[in-house]
């Protein structure tokens, strides 16, 4: 009994892992070689799903959209989070209040944030366009222009998440020993030099974390385009997960949908591995 005890304690985990992780991974690979609408029997079709994937315009569109999202989201996220963390990295009155304020959108559901931004970004009555028109500039078609809509969603996602990264950068900045800056001051270093040669190398692990989490976030984007634009206009905001969802639950192409999921998962792991090498060597 005593010997078996550890196994009883880990049994729930093992069973759960087998049912909800191990089996799905194996089954996902099986599904990629089949055509199936869940109701009729599975039909083996060899590598057809993969062939189809490479020729599927919408798959490439979703990938391209994710790329455009990350292109704006990652630099914006790092720039703003680092800037705000730098502002907060002093003994300041009200620092706790500012931290809490920046964090507010982080804890709220993406559903709420998206409905809110739908109003902010609306062409005619939106708050942003009213401000822009108020100072005499032309209104921006934030959500109606295929060339702009994905960037609007990237800005919204930054607004939602940046509070978390402010905290991570603050933790990172506080690991830099003040003596380093004092030594640099004695040598007559400029603020930029101090930032470039002391701060940046020291917070490199945090930058890596932010890049990885944002990348995974970009590939996991779903509810934002689903509510905001339903993937439009002209599929310009169709995200990876939205396309998986459409294939599975609008067309009941379970095999093809699983192929998309499998492929996107591999892609995420590959991109993160590349980022790990690149970001860690770069700075």
């Amino acid at each position, binding site marked *: 009994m005593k010997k078996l*005890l*550890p196994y009883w304690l*880990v049994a*729930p*985990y093992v069973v*759960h*892992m087998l*049912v*909800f992780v191990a*089996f*799905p*991974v194996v089954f*996902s690979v099986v599904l990629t070689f089949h055509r199936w609408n*869940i109701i009729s029997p599975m039909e083996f079709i060899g590598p057809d799903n993969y062939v189809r994937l490479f020729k599927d315009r919408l798959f490439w569109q979703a990938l391209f959209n994710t790329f455009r999202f990350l292109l704006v989201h990652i630099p914006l996220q790092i720039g703003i989070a680092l800037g*705000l963390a730098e*502002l907060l990295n002093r003994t*300041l009155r009200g620092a706790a*209040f*500012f931290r*809490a*304020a*920046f*964090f*507010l*959108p982080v804890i*709220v*559901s*993406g*559903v*709420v944030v998206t*409905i*809110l931004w739908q*109003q*902010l970004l*609306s062409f005619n*009555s939106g708050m942003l366009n*009213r401000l822009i028109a108020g100072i005499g500039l032309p209104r921006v078609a934030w959500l109606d222009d295929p060339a702009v809509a994905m960037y609007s969603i990237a800005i919204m996602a930054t*607004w939602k998440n940046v509070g*978390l990264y402010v*905290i*991570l950068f603050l933790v990172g900045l506080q690991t830099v020993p003040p003596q380093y800056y004092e030594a640099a001051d004695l040598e007559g270093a400029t603020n930029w030099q101090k930032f470039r040669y002391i701060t940046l190398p020291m917070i490199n692990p945090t930058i890596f*974390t932010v890049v*990885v*989490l944002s990348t*995974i976030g970009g590939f*996991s984007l*779903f509810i934002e385009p*689903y*509510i905001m634009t339903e993937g439009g206009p002209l599929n310009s905001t169709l995200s990876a*997960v939205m396309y*998986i*969802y459409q294939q*599975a639950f609008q067309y009941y192409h379970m095999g093809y*949908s*699983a192929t998309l*999921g*499998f492929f*996107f*998962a591999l892609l*995420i792991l590959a991109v993160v591995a590349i980022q790990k090498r690149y970001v860690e060597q770069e700075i």
Partner: protein
Amino acid sequence: MSTFLRYFLLILAAASFVYPFVWMLSASLSSESELGNLTLWPVGFTWANYVTVFSKIPLGRAFVNSVLVAVITTGLVLISGAMTGYALARLQFRGRNLIFYLIIFTMTLPFQITLIPNYITMVKLGWVDTYFALIVPFMLNSLSILLFRQAFMSLPQALIDAARLDGCGELRIIFQILFPNILPTVLTITILTFMGLWNEALWPLIVIRDEPTMTMPQLVTLFSVGGRADGQLTVKITAAVMLAIPIIILYLFFQRHFIRSMASSGLKD
């Protein structure tokens, strides 16, 4: 940088994160024609939007579902996470390292790969449109096991030895003797799990079609894309306000813990 400029920028930033929420609340209490106003206070004060939302969707029922699902699942995550975490931290057994590495591996696995197969599992088990589909897949998670493991490792062995001498069983040791010593970890896991479940919309959209079983995020999502809001933005915003209020109230009470919990999960990855 002068202190004045520093404060000016911080206040500007804080306002850009907080003001939109205040505006939402005020818009939900205003009539539709006043929507474009950039005001803090409701214009033409009315409860009409709330009446409309409740008459169109069973939001009260969805609230109860959300609370049930989030509370039960969080409880199960705490129990199962503590059991596994304790075994990994304090007991010697064959396969311990294997399980530890499996947990690390499953944490890095993108959910895109398991999404469709897990839906099929739900179909085959007959769990579509049941609470099981909302609870069981989430009742265990790798992060909570790792956090528990870390917390249990930091406790002195004497605490466990003393309890064993008193004749305590291992389950009693975990939940009665050790739990009070790792309350910060328990709180972290509670917050992360509860918040994640409260805000989750994708999985419910996949496994629930039956309105009385829906949780709030799903119901509000379908309401806002399904045309039942008749294109009225204020009504959509009102539904969003009701989804946000419970978690914001919790945040007001446990602000520091929310921030610490989220930061610790971010740093883990």
